[in-house]
């Protein structure tokens, strides 16, 4: 985190200014859909940042991270269904439940390494996915509609889209700051050291399992908060929130933005979701003059472009977008 003016720092600063000013633009006649889209982006960026903490810094590739989004979301949804609308109860419960689930999953999964870790986290995610499918009282497979957003003070009305946007933005900044502090602390050194050479860290005398577990729990708790936000944003929770492809999306965001880079997950979330929204339009508007009506049809199949693009990024742009901005060296 040097404060020098480099291309990368300029891009990150520009992105942050854009995020802060977006609601102002929207209130002055901008497309209101932008606010909804970027609220979603901010929330997913919180989740991706938490995944980056374990995956980028800790080397723990969790393929079940969406579980914590689901856990946080369902905590809010179930409490709302049972008549507890206060955010002062809902959000801490969402975080606590996610942390507890992370503790159990982490304690069992962190005994394994590599591919086995990827698969066991996926397995636990599937278990919890089916738990929510079986929650007959709370909608089961169809999901659960939330009729009132979490209630805080009178001044903090989350039903106001601009207010909610700024709440998400503030929480994202807080989470990024927290991750920065964690990673650069003694705790973070142990986590990063254990990523590079776990055996050596143990030989030095660190009980790395405990450190990694705490790291996993923190990431789960943060992601649970993202789940609570997402539930408020969509006013709906369903098992689909924790489907394994959602976990895949989170991994994509982190790697796309830059693994182990502080602002990488935010960049990744912005890029992926803006790309998802704009690519169909782009194909349509660029293609129609050349290919006519065929382009409009092709626009529906934009994922056909996204898939190979992911492949290319993996093959040729290690370090993600952040790595490209930093310039040159592959890592």
């Amino acid at each position: 985190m040097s404060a020098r003016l480099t291309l990368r720092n300029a891009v990150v600063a520009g992105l942050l200014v854009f995020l802060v000013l977006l609601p102002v633009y929207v209130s002055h006649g901008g497309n209101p859909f932008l606010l909804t889209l970027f609220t979603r982006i901010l929330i997913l960026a919180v989740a991706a940042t938490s995944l980056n903490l374990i995956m980028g810094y800790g080397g723990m590739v969790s393929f079940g991270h969406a579980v914590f989004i689901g856990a946080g979301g369902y905590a809010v949804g179930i409490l709302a269904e049972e008549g507890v609308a206060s955010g002062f109860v809902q959000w801490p419960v969402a975080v606590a439940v996610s942390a507890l689930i992370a503790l159990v999953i982490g304690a069992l999964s962190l005994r394994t390494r590599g591919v086995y870790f990827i698969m066991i986290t996926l397995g636990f995610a599937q278990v919890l996915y089916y738990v929510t499918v079986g929650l007959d009282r709370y909608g089961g497979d169809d999901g659960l509609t939330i009729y009132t957003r979490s209630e805080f003070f009178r001044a903090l009305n989350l039903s106001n889209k601009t207010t909610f946007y700024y709440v998400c933005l503030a929480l994202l900044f807080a989470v990024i700051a927290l991750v920065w502090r964690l990673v650069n602390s003694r705790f973070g050194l142990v986590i990063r050291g254990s990523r590079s050479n776990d055996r050596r860290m143990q030989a030095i005398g660190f009980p790395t399992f405990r450190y990694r577990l705490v790291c996993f729990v923190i990431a789960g708790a943060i992601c649970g908060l993202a789940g609570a936000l997402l539930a408020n944003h969509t006013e709906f929770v369903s098992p689909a929130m924790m489907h394994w492809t959602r976990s895949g999306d989170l991994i994509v965001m982190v790697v796309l933005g830059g693994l182990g880079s502080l602002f990488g997950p935010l960049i990744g979330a912005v890029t992926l979701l803006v790309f998802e929204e704009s690519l169909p339009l782009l194909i349509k508007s660029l293609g129609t003059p050349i290919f006519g009506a065929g382009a409009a049809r092709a626009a529906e199949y934009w994922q056909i472009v996204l898939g190979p693009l992911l492949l290319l990024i993996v093959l040729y742009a290690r370090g993600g977008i952040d790595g490209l901005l930093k310039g040159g060296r592959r890592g």
Partner: protein
Amino acid sequence: MLLLIEQILNGLQLGLLLFLLAAGLTLVFGIMDLVNLAHGSLYMIGAYFAATFAALTGSFVLAAILALGATLLVGMAVEVIAMRRLYGRDHLDHVLATFGLILFFNELVRLLWGPAGMNLPLPGWLNTSVQLLPGLQYPTYRIAIILVSLAVAVLLYVTVMRTRIGMLIRAGASNREMVSALGVNIKLLYTLVFGLGAALAGLAGLMQAPILTVQIGMGENILILAFVVIIIGGIGSIRGALIAAILIGLIDTIGRSYLPDLLRLVMSPRGASAIAPAVSSMLIYALMALVLIVRPQGLFPVSGK
């Protein structure tokens, strides 16, 4: 009792189908050290090819053979174009790149075949049932699946363990550089292995097609099951994959048919029938977690790696 036998046969059939999928996955995993999430896409493509060829030729068997060949070619093309560049990379890269391939294949299928699913009708001679025991009729087609899968399993085992090419495959798994230094075209060998895995996935897909509909995303849930199978069986072990696949197939099928009754003993009938499907889906993942906790390398770890 007859119901139990029927459910065991159903479980065996599901397990063997899972084995076909898992065998390709575990070969690629064990030999190239490649995590291939797009394996389920090859399963889907096999089913689509079969449905298309069946509509064109009117013959189920001919369609199956053509679809197998086509899936083999698609698999080899995918290996040459994409997978080859991923060997030796981090597993995270594999997950991400093949996740991209899933998106690609799903959209490609939507583009070529449209969003609606397809049906692969069974020919009359398979669409009958056989009396196995007095009072137990069992569909011919399911028996055919069991027999074909068993034959393929034996063939695969003999190929890998008893033939020269199998020897080269195993040698390539333990030391790639050494095998290639001895003059074996390891690149071609890997392409063949990947194609073989794809063909096995395609076979599973096309055999499952008449039972379920052929649709986009059909490979994704069963892919996760196949991963569970190879994790439980031990990565790279074909024997482990076979045993784990049959175990998973039996647990899943028997769980689905008997859990509602078991749960009804301890809770209200309505509640029991509501949560039973979810609980039986969870069983296999719980089993995987248990196996990994007790034996982190799976039940039949491949030694010497």
